[in-house]
């Protein structure tokens, strides 16, 4: 484990580069899904937005839960990483309530969004995340966080503004998307720090990138399956 700071920095930037490529491919796949195409081409309806909120709720609700489970599977040598995941889970575990409030603000019934069944993509994504989080030292999940956080930082605000503009909605009806879109440069620095805790390690690096790829594909499947 005697690595020089340069080796560690190189390992981090190599993984960040591979993750960035995964994210840009993911972004293009998302833009080709029917729901997002309707949004960017101006054919988006209130019903599309409600379907979108229902679809997102499942995964947002699960997010804090798999992160907590992952934290509980991290060994004592990585207490710092465990703390970060736990703090992260606490910050986000109530966010699905915001989605419910948005749903009601666009004319949906609370019971509808709460009782909705997960779509096929959400089922697959959720099963995958909990499966990975249940393994010992599930560092690959940093790749999943990269994808999901990236969506929050980069896509959410863009989507929120488009939804608001297309459907002429007040802020309180798109607060989940807009709030997540507040671009936070600190996230990147924090993510680099987390990578630095588990790298350099070629097997871990490969697992992080692979987990990002699988998560991105399943996330896109979840959006593909969202239809009004």
């Amino acid at each position: 484990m005697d690595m020089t700071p340069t080796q560690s920095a190189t390992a981090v930037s190599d993984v960040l580069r591979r993750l960035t490529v995964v994210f840009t491919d993911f972004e293009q796949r998302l833009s080709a899904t029917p729901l997002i195409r309707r949004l960017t081409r101006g054919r988006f309806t209130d019903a599309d937005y409600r379907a979108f909120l229902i679809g997102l709720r499942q995964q947002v609700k699960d997010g804090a839960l798999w992160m907590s489970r992952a934290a509980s599977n991290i060994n004592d040598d990585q207490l710092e990483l465990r703390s970060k995941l736990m703090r992260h889970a606490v910050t986000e575990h109530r966010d699905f309530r915001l989605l419910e409030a948005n749903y009601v603000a666009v004319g949906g019934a609370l019971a509808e969004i709460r009782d909705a069944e997960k779509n096929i993509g959400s089922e697959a994504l959720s099963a995958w995340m909990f499966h990975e989080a249940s393994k010992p030292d599930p560092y690959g999940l940093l790749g999943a966080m990269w994808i999901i956080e990236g969506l929050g930082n980069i896509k959410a605000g863009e989507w929120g503004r488009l939804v608001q503009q297309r459907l002429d909605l007040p802020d309180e009806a798109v607060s989940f998307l807009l709030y997540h879109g507040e671009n936070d440069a600190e996230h990147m620095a924090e993510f680099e720090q987390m990578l630095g805790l588990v790298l350099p390690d070629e097997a871990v690096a490969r697992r992080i990138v692979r987990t990002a790829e699988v998560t991105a594909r399943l996330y896109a499947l979840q959006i593909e399956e969202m239809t009004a």
Partner: protein
Amino acid sequence: MNHLRDVFITGVGAHLPGAPIPNDQMEDHLGRVCGRDSLLGRRALRWNGVKTRHYAIDAEGQAFDSNAGMCAKAVRAALDDAGLESLDYLASATTQGDWLVPGHGVSVHGELGCGPLEVASFQSVCGSSLMAAKAAWLNVRAGEHEVAAACAGEFSSRWFQPAFYEGTSLVDAKGRLAAEADYLRFTLSDGAGAVLMEPKARPDGLSLKIDFIDVVSLAGSFEPCMWAGAPSASRSDPMTTWSHAGPVAAHAQGAVALLQDFELLKRVIRAWVGVYLKKVDQGRIEPAAIDHLLCHYSAESLREELMGLLEATAGMIPREKWFSNLPTVGNVGAASIWVMLEAFLRDGRLKRGQRVLCVVPESGRSLVGFMMLEAV
């Protein structure tokens, strides 16, 4: 016969029409839409950082050259630079030629006025320059031709005259031009550039050996981002473009104007970075081995987070290795990369053995091209 040859850029030419026009005189040449000064102009100029540019239209609005004419002058300048008299292959690039039909290639040949040639026309936006360069490169590489030219020209100011906008839905009741149209008026300008390619280096001075030219289109995932020929709302549907409405109705819809979608541009920029980083990851581009970067890009507009991303992913080429003449010559679209290369070679900073990476992003429908050169 199946042997591919090395190919060298042995001559470079640029043609910028008239005198450099400073910011405060731009609207004398472009005209004022509905007689009023632009609201957006100064902001656009801060964003793109251009201080002077050239127009092939004088202060009275009279054109004194054509796109094909400027290209022909650039090709002749490149021939002079290489010490050659003639060529046998001509690939021409532009965003919009002088005619709708036929293509730009034959128009440039017509202005050159020389004997029979093989020609090819490439029409896109900035990236058409490298499409033409790739055709010229492969033609020489395969032994089809001994002297090939790739040229590119733009006559954007012609599109920015008030008549393109007045009486259309792009101008509101108070006579204000929509931002997606006005921004480009303060960004693009006129000129042409050309390179000559041969299967041997020039006898004196430096030549540039072409290592590779890669052009990557992401249009399968993106709507048009900079376009003309359709109004903003229906731009993604090829069945509703200008010729379906007819020229008069299309003009009224604002379909006969160059337009830019800024929101989409942010996504397109990330996609370009993705393509670039993929090439770094594959070892096609090694940032540490690049001595000079010529990026057709408004460096001033590169947002900080983008720089941060390139640095964090070890993809950044240090700023001191970037060369650009954008502030003085403006954004000449497809011609920019050749106009930049010409100024770079004249600058004298290039040394034998150094590697030069040219990057040409095109927001049109999300395309990006790369050309790797080595000074020999």
